[in-house]
């Protein structure tokens, strides 16, 4: 299992909000891997499907957040954060789930919401690398079978 940590300096930009914990992994691949189906020959099929869907959906959610922030429609932003928090948490994408939780439950201002979205997008770059690598590993494993 490979767990990657985010290197965030807790002293960076103090006072905006509590930045994600450096201890929490970006992706807990054990959680994602728990959806493998050991009874089928295509053992990693569902996990690969979930990775593809998650990467696509997160991009769509960022756009919804950006539009909500632009118009300061916090109900749109919070609904988008709620949706992404649920799927992130369930797939073991822990840091993003944490940032979404702050966005969903915090009192938002334009500055804070923008900051949280920036953090989400930065974290998503990291998450994307991990999930794409995991996808390739699994697809490679299937090809070898």
């Amino acid at each position, binding site marked *: 299992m490979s767990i990657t940590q985010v290197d965030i300096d807790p002293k960076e930009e103090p006072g905006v909000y509590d930045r994600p914990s450096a201890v929490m992994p970006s992706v807990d691949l054990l959680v994602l891997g728990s959806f493998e189906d050991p009874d089928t020959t295509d053992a990693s099929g569902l996990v690969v*499907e*979930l990775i593809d869907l998650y990467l696509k959906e997160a991009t769509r959610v960022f756009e919804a957040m950006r539009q909500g922030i632009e118009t300061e429609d916090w109900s749109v932003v919070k609904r988008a954060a709620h949706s992404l928090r649920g799927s992130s948490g*369930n797939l073991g994408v822990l840091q993003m789930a944490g940032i979404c939780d702050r966005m969903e439950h915090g009192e938002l201002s334009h500055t804070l919401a923008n900051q949280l979205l920036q953090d989400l997008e930065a974290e998503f770059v990291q998450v994307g690398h991990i999930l794409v690598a995991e996808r390739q590993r699994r697809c490679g494993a299937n090809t070898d079978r």
Partner: protein
Amino acid sequence: MFSMTKQNTPRILIADDDPVIRHLVTRLVEKSNYEAVVCADGREAIRVLQSDSNFCGAIFDMMMPHLEGLELIKFMRTEKRLMRIPVLMITSESDLKLMANSFSAGATLFLPKPFTADQFHSTFKLLLSTNSNKVVRNA
């Protein structure tokens, strides 16, 4: 977006606006040899329920656009032909009041997110055991 009906396969109604969770739940339900009838939100689910009651269970997300899971349950509990269908609510909220409201509205079970495949299968099995018109399945 619902699937085609397969003859004699017991059916589960699924409504979730999150494509990732919706796909995950659908695949887990299908893995248990049930047919998933899939809706992208509560409004779509209510349209299905208005003309179709042939479900041995339903799985709803609590928070959905247009019509929330709670409203769907309230509708089902006022319709005689839908009353018997057990409902599993899935939510990422840990609010006890929300949970209590779901049960008083008529939810059968509650599955908090995040959940594992094992947790889903146990809860799903429990859900179907509460159905008075149980479908007996081969192991």
